[in-house]
């Protein structure tokens, strides 16, 4: 049996995986499902999962899922695509470092350029108070103007973006404190 801590949707779940014949028993918190797994390619799994009826009155439904799994370079998380829905998942604490920074929480927010591009507008000055989701900088890249926004309320502590300047991916642009 293997144990994992899996963070998804803001909650950390304990997941245990055990083999049972040619299937797997997966225990999520205190509920166990039986999963039949087929690997389609390095990034795709086909799951057929017995989903018990809560009352046990009927046979379990054998739900079929095709899932894709790929690391998100920006955050270190796994992006699990369940049908058309991408779900960010952190396995054993491989947490969203950059996304964390971008999305507030505690500590200063360090806003970096997500892609190489050109700073077309700087919408704040050093020391300005900002609100969560307020646009701070506009970067032109991939033919689009892209607004980078504050992840939290605070003050502009550092401002490294200058209009007209070209920046590389990862370049620090603004720190909100």
């Amino acid at each position, binding site marked *: 049996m*293997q144990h*994992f801590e899996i963070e998804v949707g803001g909650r950390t779940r304990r997941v245990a995986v055990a083999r049972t014949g040619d299937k797997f028993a997966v225990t999520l918190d205190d509920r166990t499902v039986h999963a039949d797994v087929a690997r389609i390619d390095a990034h795709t799994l086909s799951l057929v999962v017995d989903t018990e009826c809560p009352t046990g009155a009927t046979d379990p439904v054998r739900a079929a899922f095709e899932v894709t799994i790929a690391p998100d370079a920006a955050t270190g998380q796994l992006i699990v695509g369940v049908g058309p829905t*991408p779900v960010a*998942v952190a396995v054993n604490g491989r947490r969203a470092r950059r996304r964390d920074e971008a999305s507030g929480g505690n500590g200063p927010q360090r806003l970096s350029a997500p*892609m190489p591009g050109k700073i077309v507008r700087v919408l704040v000055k050093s020391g300005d108070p900002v609100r969560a989701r307020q646009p701070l900088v506009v970067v032109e890249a991939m*033919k689009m103007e*892209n607004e980078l926004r504050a992840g939290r309320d605070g003050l502009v502590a550092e401002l490294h973006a200058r209009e007209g300047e070209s920046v590389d991916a990862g370049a620090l642009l603004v720190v909100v404190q």
Partner: protein
Amino acid sequence: MKKILIANRGEIAVRIIRACREMDLSSVAVYSECDRSALHVRLADEAYAIGPSAPRESYLRIDRLVDAARRSGADAVHPGYGFLAENEDFAAACVGAGLTFIGPTARAIETMGSKTAARGAAKRAGVPVVPGTEDPLGADATSEEIAATAQSIGYPLLVKAVAGGGGKGMRTVVDPSDLASAVGAARSEAATAFGDPAVYLERELPRPRHIEVQLLADHHGAVVPFVERECSIQRRHQKVVEETPSIAVTPALRAEITSAAAAVAKGVGYTNAGTIEFLVDENGRFYFLEMNTRLQVEHPITEMVTGLDLVQWQIRIARGERLDVDPARALTPTGHAIECRVYAEDPDNNFLPSPGRIVALRPAAGPGIRDDSGATAGLDVPIFYDPMISKLAAWAEDRPRAIARMRRALAEYLVAGIRTTVPFFTWLLSQPDFSAGRFDTTYLDGVLKAQNGRPFVEPAAGVEEMAAIAAALHTALSPARPPANGGSTGGRWKTEARLEGLR
């Protein structure tokens, strides 16, 4: 005409290669450094490198494109859309090099490329234009003169770049006191983006729909307008979803607006493919907005409801053939078609581009689905260009079934390694306002604002559990990445699981 150089990349280059092959013409691709493995290079008959990845060093280099045409012995050039498609100098350079330019004349591109000149052409053809200034604002006009002009047009109004496009060099002014700064900002943006600071003023219609008319025109005087496309679903003036026919266009309006479009094209002696964009107000009155002197991104939906191949017609017109299309057929849609532009963007992160490697891709297929794409698994979405990876189009007997089919297609569209707008479309196509056709060009920006950063597809609890289960299984079964606090029975267990559990 035997060999066509395609001065473009991505899905539209692939689209044109397909037309060439169906017409028994050779196709010549060009590619920048980062596009060496791109699908258009793999599918073309010949391929020429034209420089570094930045567009201004490759796809915008007229000299290199003309040189590649010369080296390959091409006798014609198709510009696609974007890049140099609406650049009169490119059209002229092709003709100057003895190449057939598959598009309108340089003169038509120039005339209709100036928004004020195009508005003049529309007026002369008797077609209403959005109220606004006839000429660009004088470079030395005083604030008072501009304010007076603005007053005569009425607020809210738009300051627009004469050379504009794609929502750039455009400012909305609601309060007259903001006018002067908006004009200044628009001028400077226009100068940067288009090399031309000229701007003009236009009234902003309250809740217009964007309705456009595709045209074909040959060199023998025939002009054929097509059933309208509705492109009101826009994010920041960029089209996101297009459909045809429009739910808002009555047969009477269709007759009027398509005749108006044809009149404008005839008035300027237009040839080849082009599209006239209109705004339609809440009372069904329409106003000429601008003309695109090229193939549109959204041309496939017109092909789907009329059965005509617009790219093949562009080529046939360019080589002098007569446009022997039944005008009634072009105006009579069979069924309904919708297109979703699938972008490598993260809809849940303010639509930021999501470049990177596509590690898995299985586009939708089956009945009524057309996928025009330049993407394949293993390719990187480059940072240098428009991040569109696919144009997913669905056709069905009627609009509700086309929406249902598109939702089915989105549900089976499998892509990993990058974020895409697929989840956003899944959300949008399930909105009651979308189903009912209750939208205008302000609709999407409004709902995006109301969404305020909330994810479009909030995973249901069951989906999150399935993601957790899948991540655990994937990690347990991956040889390269043993979990930090791994299993009790060690490596052999995992090997067995791989061999036996995974079939």
